[in-house]
């Protein structure tokens, strides 16, 4: 069952590369949250029940409901355009995401380590690489936050890969990181949107004391 969610996760990465609409980014992030919930539900049954419930609540509440809801609010506040242009044509992005997927699957086959759960490591590796690529190709700060969240989802899977225990402290730290990151960036985007009436990053070069 875990494999189903892992394959679904790779498909969401492909749709991230395909879509150009801001609304779709938020939707896809929410879907990724649900997929992470599925992965956690089917693979983390050895840990303590309190930790288990905490992780499930974190994925379903924070990753798939609160963060997308907040991002939607930011999107509406700043009157973002429906379509976000990228600096690379979408066809190239699709080819690159496929390359990333193939590379990460073949790399993990080559790695064949006993210390890492490679099935989680493949998608987490692909997700982190793709998140970085996503940030590079977009010109808008809002999309940068989305890219940051894709990387965060990759980190969540990475913590599953290195040992399916998920220590509580690490978990809390990641959760705090995501929430603070998104809140601070959201406020930041709102302020920039109010000041410049646009959230494109080329406007940021004009920022001065």
């Amino acid at each position: 069952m875990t494999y189903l969610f892992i394959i679904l996760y790779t498909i969401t990465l492909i749709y991230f590369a395909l879509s150009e609409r801001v609304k779709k980014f938020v939707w896809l992030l929410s879907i990724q949250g649900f997929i992470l919930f599925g992965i956690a539900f089917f693979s983390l049954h050895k840990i303590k029940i309190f930790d288990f419930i905490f992780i499930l609540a974190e994925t379903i509440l924070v990753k798939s409901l609160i963060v997308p809801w907040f991002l939607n609010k930011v999107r509406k506040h700043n009157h973002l355009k429906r379509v976000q242009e990228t600096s690379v044509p979408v066809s190239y992005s699709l080819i690159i995401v496929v390359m990333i997927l193939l590379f990460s699957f073949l790399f993990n086959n080559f790695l064949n380590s006993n210390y890492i759960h490679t099935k989680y490591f493949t998608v987490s590796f692909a997700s982190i690489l793709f998140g970085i690529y996503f940030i590079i190709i977009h010109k808008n700060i809002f999309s940068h936050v989305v890219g940051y969240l894709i990387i965060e989802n990759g980190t969540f899977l990475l913590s599953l890969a290195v040992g399916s225990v998920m220590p509580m402290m690490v978990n809390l730290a990641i959760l705090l990181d995501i929430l603070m990151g998104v809140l601070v960036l959201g406020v930041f985007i709102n302020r920039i949107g109010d000041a410049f009436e646009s959230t494109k990053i080329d406007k940021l070069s004009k920022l001065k004391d």
Partner: protein
Amino acid sequence: MISLLLILISSLFFVGIIVKVKAKIAARKMPPVLQPVYDVIRLFKKGAVYSQTTSVIFKIAPLVYFSSVFLAVLFIPIGSNEGLLSFEGDFVFFAYLLGIGKFMTIISAMDTGSGFEGMGANREALYSMLAEPAFFIIAGSMALFTDNISFHDLFLHLKQDADLYYIIGIASTYVLVYIAMVENSRMPIDDPKTHLELTMVHEVMILDNSGFDLGLIHIATWLKFSIYGALISNFIISNSWNLYWQIAVFLGIQFAFSTIVGILESFRARNKIEKNPQWIIMLSAISIVVFLTVLIITQKIILN
């Protein structure tokens, strides 16, 4: 033989059902399900009109198109019923048979010397070229999955009880439905009901064909839909079922497929022309995911 008959019978109703579903959704009066067949009979009774600028290519193209598609039908098995023709590697032959038909319609469109038809031919060539990798990756993945390279053996040895098979089945069905839409120039790619030559893809190519030739082209379109419906049904029909059950499920799947096409055409907006290539490349990307799943199942990639 059974598979050939089934595909021919289902092809007669396919477009009729699509039109019926679209009419029902738009709350219009529904035409009879055999209306497209009556239209083609009417076309067959008419003679064809040829422009003075066209050459022999334009005259033979519809025949070659029809016969290549008909020949392709002979290769399709349904469940445990073998197609009339079968040999190792026939799925490559199948793809290029459809390719020959497409090539002939493209050069016949260019033969008319009309700017619009050349433009349509250009688009059609691009879209089929982009859809081809998706089909080959799916067929190749199936070949890897079953260790067989003919259509019949490939579907006969499909291990439907294998772990993760449902991912392969669902993703392949999704890709094949949309390849069928690309090949037949239907909704997300092209709107068959559009009335502006500048935005047409397939319809603009056959503007000059009339009478008997146009009838042949319509029949080839039905057959193509039915071929893809049969391919999709092979992912679902199990060989252990008895014959009547297999036939019933096949007809059910064809009906469901045509209904889905009707619903998609009623509710989906057409892609912008410049967004089409990236959308078709996405199909190849999804089929790569199928390929990776097959690699995991067959333990060519070992993940722990």
